[in-house]
């Protein structure tokens, strides 16, 4: 092998894929500024920024938890339900400690708020402990263990809410209103969640890159058996990872309660676990474990929220209608683009054989349907036709480059 310089040093600040993601964020913001008919980025820049920052911070906080779990080679599907449970624990604790003030929408006092928030974080710790016990001691696959808590915790949160309200208030209810000024301040001051997100990101980054624990997390995710044989107490490392995942979700749950001034276990945080995993994956985490960075996840979360914001600004319908679709498309695109180089080198094709043939109309129908719903049927038909032609050309080009088979 030829001797060459030390080209394997840590890259400057970010890895190449992360610089690309940062660039993609800038491009998305630029496109929105151009294409938005109301020019809201130009006319109300602060409001737009605040909106994106709040959403990014809320997503980012528990996406950091998902990142740690994923790097450790696991998966936590329960973050959304943990958000609901955390909010409910917080609200019912306040209800129990100060029922009169809570029912009268009056301040409950800083001590009660502190106890309630601590109770939520403790709930996160307990759920994380439960996860790692199920996974390491019982031997459940992480997917199964956290799938069980995904459905179980939300139901548990609702039952907790209903039994607490029926015991402490005149009527049974599936939500608890939270009117304490502490939560109002958090809601009105967007920089609080952003600051918390920033500090948490720095702490997570330090843990992952500069501590023995962080190295052990990467080793565990890369090769669990080798990690154990290297003398790493893998069960303790997992315990940390799942607790970190659940506690960041619990922290995010407190911000959701503040934002919506209510703890609503039925719907709060529903489906958010998948957004967190998506942010981590867009940021470069591998679900096989061992791979991922904090800057990647932070950029992934920003990118997701910027694109969602862009679509809601450009298409004047509710952003929440298209949110899932956008997340889905962004994840597929991010992971595909990361592989295109490898695919070309390995001689792999995007549209091979009869599966590729069927994929062409599938993709054309999908794009046609999306465009016609957002920009009218005529544009939709045009989009469908254009995708059909483009994909067909791509397939023809791929086939001309490498003959399918000589046989």
């Amino acid at each position, binding site marked *: 092998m030829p001797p060459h310089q030390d080209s394997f040093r840590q890259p400057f600040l970010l890895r190449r894929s992360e610089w690309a993601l940062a660039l993609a964020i800038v491009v998305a913001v630029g496109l929105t500024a151009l294409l938005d008919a109301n020019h809201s980025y130009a006319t109300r820049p602060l409001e737009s920024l605040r909106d994106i920052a709040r959403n990014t911070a809320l997503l980012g906080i528990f996406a950091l938890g998902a990142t740690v779990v994923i790097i450790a080679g696991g998966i936590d599907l329960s973050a959304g339900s943990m958000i609901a449970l955390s909010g409910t624990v917080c609200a019912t604790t306040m209800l129990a400690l100060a029922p009169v003030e809570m029912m009268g929408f009056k301040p409950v006092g800083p001590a009660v708020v502190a106890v309630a928030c601590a109770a939520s974080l403790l709930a996160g710790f307990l759920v994380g402990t439960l996860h790692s016990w199920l996974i390491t001691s019982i031997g459940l696959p992480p997917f199964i263990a956290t799938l069980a808590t995904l459905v179980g915790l939300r139901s548990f949160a609702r039952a907790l809410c209903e039994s607490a309200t029926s015991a402490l208030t005149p009527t049974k209810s599936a939500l608890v209103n939270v009117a304490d000024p502490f939560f109002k301040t958090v809601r009105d001051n967007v920089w609080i969640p952003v600051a918390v997100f920033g500090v948490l990101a720095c702490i997570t980054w330090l843990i992952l890159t500069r501590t023995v624990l962080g190295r052990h997390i990467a*080793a565990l995710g890369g*090769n669990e058996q080798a990690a154990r044989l290297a003398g790493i107490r893998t069960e303790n490392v997992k315990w940390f990872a799942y607790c970190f995942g659940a506690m960041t979700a619990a922290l995010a749950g407190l911000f959701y309660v503040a934002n919506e001034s209510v703890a609503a276990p039925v719907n709060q945080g529903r489906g958010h676990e998948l957004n967190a995993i998506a942010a981590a994956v867009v940021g470069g985490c591998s679900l096989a474990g061992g791979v991922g960075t904090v800057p990647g996840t932070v950029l992934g979360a920003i990118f997701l929220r910027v694109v969602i914001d862009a679509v809601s600004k450009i298409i004047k319908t509710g952003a929440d209608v298209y949110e899932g679709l956008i997340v889905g498309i962004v994840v597929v695109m991010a992971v595909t683009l990361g592989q295109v180089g490898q695919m070309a080198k390995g001689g792999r094709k995007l549209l091979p054989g009869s599966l590729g043939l069927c994929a062409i109309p599938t993709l054309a129908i999908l794009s046609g349907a999306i465009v016609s719903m957002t920009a009218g049927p005529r544009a939709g038909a045009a989009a469908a036709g254009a995708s059909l032609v483009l994909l067909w050309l791509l397939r023809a080009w791929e086939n001309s480059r490498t003959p399918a*088979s000589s046989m």
Partner: protein
Amino acid sequence: MNHHTHDSHDNHDVKKHAAPHAVCMRGITKRFPGVVALEDMSLDVRPGEFHAICGENGAGKSTLVNILSGVYQPDGGTLEIGGAVVRFASTRDAERAGVAIIHQELALVEELSVAANVFLGREKRTALGWIDDRAMAAECALLLDSLECRVAPDALTGHLRVGDQQLVEIAKALSLDASIVVMDEPTSALTESESARLERTIAKLLARGTTILYISHKMAEVFRLADRITVLRDGRHVRTVNRADTSPEEITGWMVGRKIADRPASGPRVRGKQLLEVRNLCLEWPEHPRGYRLADISLSLCANEILGVAGLMGAGRTELLETLFGAGQSNWTGDILLEGRRVRFLHPREACDHRIAMVSEDRKRLGLFPDLDVAGNVSVCALHEALHWGLLSRSGEDALVAGSVRQTGVKTSSLHAPMMGLSGGNQQKCIIGRWLLTRPDILLLDDPTRGIDVGAKAELYALIDQLCREGMGVILTSSELPELLSLADRIIVLAEGRLTAEFSRAEATEAKIMAAATG
């Protein structure tokens, strides 16, 4: 000359006119990012011959196999099979052209039955289109029978021994009616008797006129079987010679590009104080008819001593080392004494804390962290020494790793190069270096030279010898007897979980050890 080679030549003198070469490569080149795996490779394989391919790890043997089997597409050059130019886009294409590959790492679906594996992707169907298990089992039984493989077609493949799994792969090749069978180090995980059975199978294949391309490190079997031998080095073809015109020394010389001493030059070592004593160690195995993995093992180890553990596959070598290291099951009985004090480790961590280190047998599965760089792989057990104010210090870690890499002689372009880019020998040195950073008193080496090329092996022998001279006690297992005979001061032999013999260096011979290992 073997009888079968005569047969095959006779058979094929007729065919030769139609198809001059079974395989013909002309100027095949394959590049990977940063490496040229094969360069301008030309190779002719005659129909019906047994053609051995030798080379160190990284010489390009696996790339060659992968090109022949359609896994990789060459960047340049042409490949002819039976005189026709082919371009394989997938393994399917290669199978259709009559090329079957027995990979080093077997490619069987462990959850399926033997018959299902043999016919995987080409399942037989009934007239109604349902899957026809009966017909497949019947045909599979015939195939297995012809291979002396006493395995039921409906047995679960994952439950078979490695040797039988390999025969299942060969049965698959037979059912494909392959005219060319490529075997990639097929005996690396076989016992002696399984290897002998494989050789008989090979003789049968040759008698049917099958061409065999055989990739191997082991000079003994290459010289027993081959008609011609091709040597590769650094992705290039060095030369192809008739077996009769060469010698093992010459071949290994071409493989490494220099002559190597067969055995490390090691003067006598002076045995130090006793480090470890094991008395009546038993390890249960409830789900197995034998009932135990280890029975009544007693041994001792001193400083400055290498204790060799010989035994066939499944004899309990790995289980013994894992028990000593706290990495196996904890339901063992007996006594393990470290410098006279009784210990029972429930986790490898505890063994590390008592200055015991273990290099596991399966490097890829049990040793490497593929996502960490070289430095991360080496420093993982000694990170606490690179802390500065509680945080990892990059420079501290680099210094630690640099020292270890120098000591073990790892060749890498950078401490931060990706681990998987190193050759097998260098990866193994990194893992040994990882453990040396913990400054162990006792080093357990489980088949440390498996899958490592000749040059790196010699360097590892020298390193082990030197560590031992510096006061370490080493327990070494190996599948290769010459290795044990040249390195170990004493050799114990395990057979089916029992200790059947102990020899001093002077007493031990291959014949005596084999007798004890099979008895």
